[in-house]
């Protein structure tokens, strides 16, 4: 999960005068640097061992054919060649994008609507926030199990449909049923989260702006499109980028819904629920093709990078002064799921 956190709204490090200048020219001064360097070292040591090294190693690994136990065999770029010709991989890419689109667009729209409603509401706001945020903090595995039963052939979703005289849908057996089920789970999980982020953005808009709009005779539609939405753009950008990053890494929903004892997982009937990360996991850890898994990790990385940039461009538009700097974007990308 990612989150927006900048509690202090502090300027970037380079704009800020140093809190305390120590003279590093004298020998005694130099030794004074030791405690702060020691203090920051755990992160860099851990990152070197568990972050940087594995990444460098994965480049090497992606050029090898290796089952994790026997000898590695150098195959050069062949893993990437196989990957590009692997129809299941391309299917998983397409599925991931379809699910991402089906979930992100309605989710951001609904979140915006909810945020506006919450903003106009004065009573019980605390209770609403808790209620809307709870889906986001609960275990995805447990909730996927619940949704799995709701979307089962004889489950609640079809019972409701039949009660209103509509035929049941193959939620977990048909192509669009599978994609809709996974998307609905994602929407349920993230709508409230994004609504709270948008709400905070709305609350940050100074009331004078609304008054100015009113004095100028703007109606509510003009106020919404000319005053509110432009000011919300950085927040919407943040939500769009994080939703893309999260959306391209969908795993748990598909894995838990369609896992079975005999086949491992195939992403459900017709592999319509197979996502990129699910395929990566299956190839590397179920079929022990570590080189292939490493290569897929890099392709996923490239896809995420490209889409993050596109997303960023799209939402931030063409006027450069509105675009937050890289540091600004980075500091808004939380790391709850990241290691």
């Amino acid at each position, binding site marked *: *999960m990612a*989150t927006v*956190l900048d*509690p*202090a709204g*502090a300027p970037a490090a*380079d704009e800020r005068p*140093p*809190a*305390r200048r120590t003279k590093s020219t004298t020998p005694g001064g130099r030794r004074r640097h030791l*405690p*702060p*360097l020691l*203090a*920051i070292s755990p*992160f860099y040591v851990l990152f070197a*061992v568990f972050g940087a090294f594995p*990444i460098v*190693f*994965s480049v090497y690994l992606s050029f090898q054919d290796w089952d994790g136990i026997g000898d590695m065999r150098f195959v050069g770029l062949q893993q990437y060649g196989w990957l590009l010709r692997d129809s299941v991989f391309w299917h998983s890419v397409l599925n991931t994008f379809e699910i991402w689109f089906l979930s992100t667009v309605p989710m951001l729209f609904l979140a915006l*609507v*909810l945020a506006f409603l919450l903003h*106009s*509401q004065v009573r019980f706001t*605390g209770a609403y926030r808790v209620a809307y*945020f*709870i889906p986001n*903090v*609960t*275990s995805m*595995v*447990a*909730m996927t*199990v619940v949704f799995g*039963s*709701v979307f089962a052939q004889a489950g609640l979703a079809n*019972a409701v449909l039949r009660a209103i005289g509509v035929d049941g849908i193959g939620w977990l057996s048909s192509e669009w049923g599978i994609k809709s089920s996974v998307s609905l789970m994602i929407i*349920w999980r993230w709508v409230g989260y994004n609504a*709270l*982020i948008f709400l905070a953005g*709305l*609350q940050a808009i100074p009331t004078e702006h*609304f008054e100015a709009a009113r004095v100028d005779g703007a109606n*509510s539609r003009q106020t919404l499109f000319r005053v*509110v939405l432009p000011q919300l753009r*950085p927040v919407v950008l943040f939500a769009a980028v994080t939703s893309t*990053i999260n959306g391209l*890494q969908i795993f748990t929903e598909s894995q838990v819904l369609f896992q079975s*004892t005999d086949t491992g997982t195939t992403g459900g009937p017709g592999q319509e629920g197979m996502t990129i*990360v699910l395929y990566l*996991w299956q190839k590397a850890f179920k079929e022990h093709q570590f080189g292939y*898994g490493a290569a897929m990790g890099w392709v996923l*990385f490239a896809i995420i990078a490209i889409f993050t940039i596109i997303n960023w461009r799209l939402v931030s538009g063409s006027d450069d002064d509105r675009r937050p700097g890289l540091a600004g974007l*980075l*500091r808004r*990308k939380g*790391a709850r*799921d*990241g*290691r």
Partner: protein
Amino acid sequence: MAADDRTTSSAHLAIGSGSRLSRIGVRATLLFGVLVSLFPFYWLVVLASGTTQDIYRYPPKLLPGPHLLDNMGRVLDTVDFFGSLFNTVVVAVLGTVLVLFFDSLAAFAFAKYEFPAKKFLFGMLLVTYMIPAQLSLVPQFVTMAEFGWAGSLKALIIPSAANAFGIFWMRQYAQNSLPDELLDAGRIDGAGFFRLYWTVAVPLFRPALAFLGIFTFIGLWNDYIWPLVVMIDPDRVTLQVALANLNVLYNTDYSLVMAGALMSVIPLILVFLIGARHFLRDLAAGAMKM
């Protein structure tokens, strides 16, 4: 869909001139949202307290049944629930404590001290953010296997014991809530770096630590893909993996699986509800400053 109209009218309301009717509409919509948010939890309780036959009944039973305790008891007989609960608690608690300690220590140094290559090191910290976890899933597992840590709780705790997000966030907080005068006063009294950190900084960091703590705890508790990959011994897994296994092996016994799911969700919901006020306020406060 009428939602577009609603957006407009709520913006109208937001600037303070809504009619009584649209106010009722706003409340009804918000309440409907709450019901949708909470319904899966209610349904979890219904399924976990009924029998497996109830689930296939048409029309479905919409009220909780009397079998909750039986079903929970069967979970305890079927899987080592307390074993995996223990693993999860150890990982979440130890992991959170380490993150709070290392992140706040580093944040204190970054916020209040000068040292060589500080800008470069902080920039590097931000760049590490950009790397998606899945990229290093395979090599990280191989690293763990080489260390002999695969299957051990160390593999879940140590790699995430300090993170860029927490350091960045705590540093922002430290810059604004920790007055230099206070540190100078401490220095006059002869306190060194670590003493100042522990006696001056940590007490003032408390609200920020509370948020980071809940945030980290929830993340560690819910993590699924990494424990799934690295906890190679099926008898020694975390709650999330145990629940997924229960779902695969007993998926015809719905009420058993649902009771397990309920038991895995309850502790976390309690943690969230206890800390929710602080948590959500900080989340919103952070976004407002963007």
